[in-house]
């Protein structure tokens, strides 16, 4: 369990670094501290919950696999910043999306599992 958690956190750190590296906006900071659950998506029973989530730009999104099967979180667009490694039960993946827009994703092991994240401009 300890090992899993460290892998999850490492993935989260890499995800955040990648997202912010790409955004090239050092002033923008993750919003996780404002509301820890704002960007949380649970994977269970071969489904993403909530299947559509709206967040403000820069919010850290975290997918937590609470299912008893491995899943992935992969953007439908080849250029999508949402690209998780395989997540075994109990593992998580995080990414922050700096650019407003609609991001569709699916599980590349079970493609009937789909979800959407809508990122809105921060005011």
């Amino acid at each position, binding site marked *: 369990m300890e090992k899993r958690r460290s892998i999850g956190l490492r993935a989260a750190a890499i995800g955040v670094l990648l997202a912010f590296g790409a955004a090239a906006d050092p002033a923008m900071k993750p919003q996780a501290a404002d509301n820890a659950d704002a960007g949380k998506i649970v994977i269970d*029973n*071969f*489904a993403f919950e909530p299947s559509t989530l709206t967040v403000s730009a820069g919010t850290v999104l975290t997918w937590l696999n609470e*299912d*008893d*099967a*491995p899943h*992935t979180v992969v953007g*439908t667009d080849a250029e999508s910043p949402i690209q998780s490694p*395989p997540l*075994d*039960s109990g593992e998580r993946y995080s990414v922050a999306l700096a650019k407003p827009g609609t991001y*569709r*994703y*699916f599980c*590349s*092991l*079970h*493609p*009937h*599992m*789909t979800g959407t994240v809508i990122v809105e401009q921060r005011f």
Partner: protein
Amino acid sequence: MSSTIDDDMSKGKLNRRTLLRCAAWGGAGVVWALKGGVPTALSLIDAAAAAEGPSLAFVQISDSHIGFNKDANPDPNGTLAAAMEKVRALPNRGGLFMLHTGDVSHLSKPEELATAQQIIGVSGLDVHYVPGEHDVLIDHGSDFFARFNGAPDRKWYSFDALGAHFVALVNVLDFRAGGLGRLGDEQLEWLEKDLRGRSASTPLVIFTHMPLWNAYPEWGWGTDDSAQALSYVKRFGSVTVLNGHVHQVLQKVEGHVSFHTAMSTAFPQPAPGTAPSPGPLKVPAETLRSMLGVREITQVRGHGSLAVVDRTLA
């Protein structure tokens, strides 16, 4: 019941109703005989009593999920080894070979694939593999293909054995969001070429991971472009499609094509629609092995036909 079937068979008029009754036997073991493209069902006893008895032709195993470590089976290595003991105990092993219809590993890790290969090696048989979606999580399965198919880019292939033409198809690469399994245009083109010019009387055995019919699309149990593939095999008199993925025996007959999904060697999955999701089915430890199994495919002598027998590890 079997005498009725015997009567029907001797009159050569086995009908759909009889077939469905046979399919319902489930645990007792059903033999599906494919003669001249028309599937007929025999009880195990009938098959054993056939003139010289059926001769074992090849074995199918599926969904070994090496690396799985959840409650549904904390020891998939042990149950795969038990399956291999079953195979080792089979009589008349000369020329026997095996198909593995995918999800060899749980997370595509090199050590999982190596462990599976080592345990399966105990069978002493040649094994022909196709990957499941769990085997292609890293680098599109290049490690799987290199290890089991001889080259990282050797994905689908065919070979001739037992007077039949065997075709290995891969329907777990390049999934589309919201879709089912997928063969893809490149593979479909290859399949059409591979079958072109072959005699329609050649029995075909197609093996792949996900079902090639819509077994239960709500759980993703099907292949989006399977209709295209099946259109290429229509003219053949006898087509047997073997797959895994759903961890239970499901059978369907459509014209000259019979579909058979196999049990897993690792853990069962719920029957379609009977649970919130197709995740691993937890059963009491003492009943687990009665829901895992290996499949034997025999040639019924004098019938010129193939028969499929599912046996549990219990």
